[in-house]
């Protein structure tokens, strides 16, 4: 499991490869906060290569969304598979995040 970060246009794109769980959530949080500190304001997390997410992983996404918004930025999510969509619907986090079907669609609408 790892997090790959790259800049696409003006957007910091993070690919979550593997699981986003209690054991690695701090790593994702720190990487995104480092970019926020450097002045980045537009973030997209892409889940096309993600297995499962636990409650700690969901919690980190909520926390990052708040911190980015406090700095005048925006966090969007893309490429949730059916399991992840179910998870976001169960927890109603689909109402909290802007979720795009594809990375391209998410990037277009920033």
């Amino acid at each position: 499991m790892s997090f790959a970060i790259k800049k696409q246009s003006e957007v910091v794109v993070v690919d979550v490869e593997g699981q986003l769980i209690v054991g690695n959530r701090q790593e994702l949080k720190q990487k995104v906060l480092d970019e926020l500190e450097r002045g980045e304001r537009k973030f997209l997390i892409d889940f096309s290569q993600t297995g499962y997410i636990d409650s700690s992983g969901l919690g980190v996404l909520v926390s990052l969304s708040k911190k980015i918004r406090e700095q005048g930025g925006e966090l969007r999510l893309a490429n949730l598979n059916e399991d992840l969509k179910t998870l976001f619907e169960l927890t109603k986090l689909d109402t909290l995040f802007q979720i795009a079907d594809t990375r391209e669609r998410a990037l277009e609408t920033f």
Partner: protein
Amino acid sequence: MSANYIDTLQLRLTLELCAPSDIRFIEGIVALIQRQCKEVSFPSSKCSLNIPVALSEALANAILRANKEDPGKQVYVRSAIDNDRLVIEIRDEGPGFDLRTSMRDPTLDENITREDGRGLFLMTRLMDRIELFNNNGNVVRMTLNRHAEAE
């Protein structure tokens, strides 16, 4: 191996393990049980969503909240798969932490932006039955039926 073939067998697949109170072990334990369920043709969405998420939550609770990551304490896992269901028991060595005290609805407006509080909620939504009891430590027993109609 097709699900139909599995249905003709009298199946009982068990696994017992003991792990240190370290969250780095969670993903591997989840993968072991997930693999067993796949091998005996548990429905794919249960293998890819219900089982890994609920099991991760239960293990994280045992390691972080009950055992408080004490390296001298262990987490004991027993799982049994038969034709009808998966039953997983997770026992910790904590002082008696009661998961029910932290149960709240994370989907309510006042809770939706909280970072915590979704673990037990997800366990109850993703498993068919959750039981909490004490047997030389706190035990969480989670049951997931193979088919929706099984009891």
